[in-house]
């Protein structure tokens, strides 16, 4: 049987249960998504977009899926401090595999501003039906990727955040996805984020895995940013080496908005990040960046597509990779400028360092330009640390290993600068240091968290 076959059978057998455990808009588009998935299947290396990552293979093992929404019986708030960024634990929400955790409230949580809704997506589909109906599935509808259809077909719940017109969130929201189970598990979480005109918000979206089991997360996040709104989206990946983390982020940008997406990969097994951005209104601004520190046999594949449909917008894209051991890094970026999108500015940069003989790096920074009055540049480099610089530091008495670490810090520092939440920046810095020292997996009081254990 094909890899897709087992999932097609599951859907046919259990679609009733899936729908029962979900609601509203999520169910409305489910059958159609399943039909598309049956036709398309999972992407393989034959697909130009998946040249370096055989995704279908990742779905081959016999994963458990929590179709009946069984309770995993954990209270993440008991250990909330381990999963939150120190100093900004005002509001933290949890997804357990793919279900929103709402049996308990966060103790001593700060008040949400009036009109702001943050809750389970399933619940929102009922209680805020008009909003969810309006947005759900709309940003991802043009995707040709079978794994997105898979998520839409199987996803029962997830995260919902709505910031109404003109409301400015006074603190960042944290969303933590905890992968936890007694057996190999496949999760299909979904997030829907709506930032209305003139509103402002920041979200730290992290993922952790609790045990050394095979986990596969296939998550879809849809983000809608209104006119003149400001939104920052940080993705922090710090899991285990057996985890496959497949992320699809779709963003729709309206006129004059400012959006920052920063994807930080510290530890994982196989990571595939897809980011697709559509500029729908003029004079909007996108900072799209990321850093990845890979070692062991980590495989990280980032694919970004930025479509400039309208003029006057700016994309500034910066991805930095440090590849060690037998890790593989891939970066494919496309900036497309449509014929009417005059006065577009697009800059795309991917710089990578390979630290070991067996590390691999594939980079494809692509530009597709159909308008003439544009400024578009891209640059990519793959290389090593500069020996002259290493020597310079050593000549000042700094040991080679420290010299190299300092230079690696310097190498990723411009991506760090794009972390505009100071507390998160500090936490990431500490994690980066641990990673470079090879201490990221050292268990300290059992926590594997962004709080990075100050002890």
């Amino acid at each position, binding site marked *: 049987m094909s890899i897709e076959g087992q999932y097609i059978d599951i859907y046919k057998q259990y679609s009733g249960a899936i729908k029962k455990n979900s609601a509203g808009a999520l169910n409305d588009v489910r059958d159609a998504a399943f039909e598309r998935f049956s036709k398309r299947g999972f992407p393989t290396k034959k697909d130009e977009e998946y040249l370096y990552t055989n995704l279908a293979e990742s779905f081959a093992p016999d994963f458990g899926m929590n179709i009946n929404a069984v309770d995993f019986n954990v209270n993440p708030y008991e250990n909330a401090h381990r999963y939150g960024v120190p100093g900004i634990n005002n509001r933290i929400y949890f997804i357990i595999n793919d279900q929103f955790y709402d049996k308990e409230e966060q103790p001593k949580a700060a008040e949400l501003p009036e009109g702001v809704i943050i809750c389970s997506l399933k619940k929102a589909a009922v209680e805020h039906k008009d909003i969810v109906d309006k947005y759900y599935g709309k940003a991802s509808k043009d995707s040709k990727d079978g794994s997105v259809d898979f998520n839409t077909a199987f996803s029962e719940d997830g995260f919902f955040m709505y910031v109404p017109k003109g409301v400015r969130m006074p603190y960042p929201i944290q969303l933590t996805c905890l992968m936890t189970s007694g057996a190999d598990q496949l999760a299909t979480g979904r997030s829907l984020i709506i930032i209305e005109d003139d509103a402002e918000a920041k979200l730290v979206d992290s993922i952790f895995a609790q045990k050394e089991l095979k986990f596969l997360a296939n998550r879809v996040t849809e983000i809608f940013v209104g006119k003149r709104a400001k939104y920052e989206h940080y993705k922090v990946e710090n899991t285990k080496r057996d985890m496959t983390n497949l992320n699809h982020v779709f963003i729709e940008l309206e006129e004059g908005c400012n959006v920052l997406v920063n994807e930080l990969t510290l530890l994982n097994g196989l990571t595939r990040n897809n980011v697709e951005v559509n500029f729908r209104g003029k004079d909007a601004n996108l900072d799209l960046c990321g850093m990845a520190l890979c070692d062991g046999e980590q495989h990280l594949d980032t694919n970004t597509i930025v479509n400039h449909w309208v003029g006057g917008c700016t994309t500034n894209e910066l991805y930095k990779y440090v590849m060690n051991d037998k890790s593989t890094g891939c970066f494919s970026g496309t900036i497309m400028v449509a014929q009417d999108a005059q006065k577009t500015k697009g800059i795309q940069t991917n710089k990578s360092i390979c630290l070991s003989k067996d590390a691999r790096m*594939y*980079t494809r920074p692509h*530009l597709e330009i159909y308008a003439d009055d544009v400024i578009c540049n891209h640059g990519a480099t*793959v*290389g090593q640390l500069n020996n002259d610089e290493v020597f310079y530091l050593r000549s000042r008495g700094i040991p080679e290993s420290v010299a190299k670490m300092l230079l690696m810090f310097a190498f990723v520092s411009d991506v760090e600068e794009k972390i505009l939440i100071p507390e998160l920046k500090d936490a990431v810095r500490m994690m980066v240091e641990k990673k470079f020292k090879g201490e990221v997996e050292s268990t300290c009081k059992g926590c594997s968290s962004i709080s990075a254990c100050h002890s």
Partner: protein
Amino acid sequence: MAENNDDKIIEELANEEYKYGFTTDIDTDYIPAGLNEDTIRLISAKKGEPDWLLEFRLKAYNQWKKMEMPHWPHLDLPEIDYQAIKYYAAPKQKKSPESLDEVDPELLKTFDKLGIPIEEQKMHVEMAVDAIMDSVSVKTTNKEKLAAEGIIFCSISEAVKNYPDLVKKYLGTVVPYSDNFFAALNSAVFSDGSFVYIPKGVRCPMELSSYFRINAINTGQFERTLIVADDESYVSYLEGCTAPARDEYQLHAAIVEIIVNDRAEVKYSTVQNWYPGDKQGKGGVYNFVTKRGLCKDDAKLSWTQVETGSAITWKYPSCVLQGDNSVGEFYSVAVTNNFQQADTGTKMRHLGKNTRSHICSKGISAGRSQNSYRGLVRVSPNADNARNFSQCDSLLLGDKCGAHTFPYMDIHNDTAVVEHEATTSKISDEQMFYCNQRGISNNNAVSLIVNGYAKEVLNKLPMEFAVEAQRLLEISLENTSSVG
């Protein structure tokens, strides 16, 4: 008011036509359209080929039948009916002309009109020319002078007859028949092309040049060029191409294979000016070419191309840097106008240690054309200290065209340094006004600026070709000065 002015200029210049669009009225020997094993046997028989070559062709044909046209290029590829194409057309003339008197005067006139010096006394510079019309080589000049140095320069059909061991040793070693769809097709039906052998330690005393001309209607041209530069030798080789203006498309699928042995150097320059189709995008040559060279230790291969013609261009002249310390270079100017489409670039495969490559690509798009750079740099696990630098620039003239850049960098070695830079720009209003203020017309300003933009590449061409290439750029872009 400024706009009216521009309109007038466009109108005046739109009348500039492809000046090589004439046809030659000459008796032609055809094999009827269609492709099957019998066609291939017939081609092979007409050329009196040995069995091993027929076998090579048949293997290639059987492979081709199993293959599909590549779908990844950024090209709107029309359906091609391979059974409607004639695979062999040759101007009727005596077998191999010993002197010019034996060459049909119509042919001489054709090449004269194209500015190709095949009458040796008329030549201004020392250059040996192999002139190829449709499927066969018409005349190779300066053979005797070259023979004195031990250099072989002749049509590949002649080489098969006279130097079968050399051809057999190298044919298909750099571009195997199974390489890609068009390479398989070419391997099955190739008609003629040039063969060059430079013996050990010899520096070829003159430029070698092949001139390709499509004349016959509904005929594919499938030439095959094989260049072998033995240890410590040097050769500079040029090719030029034109075709008549016809409403039907013409298929061209060529292969160029180059072997650059230890410490040898080959410079390969192309000025490609196949008929690009008319202003509505009707007709034109579909140009699907596989060009690849293999570099041994300390060898150097340099590709330079000026691509102004063809309705569709699909070509990636490549270097396999197998030997340690070998060097590959690729310099390209690709111009597209009207409805032309180009997907062109290079592949640099670093296999040996301390190998270096340099890529400089300048794309110019005008009209409603689509111009893509696609280039691969691959560094293998054993290619320690490989270095690559790529610069890919695009210039857009007008707001209906597209300029795309698709680099691929696959790095499997931690000592490699690979850098890629690309920019996309247009001619700025300030630059136009500055030129205008000095009395320079819009047309001349565009051509000055475009030539300046492409200078790094044009400078790599041999002198005589550089002038011609510059002129070609001007003609190709003459109706685009609506900038400013």
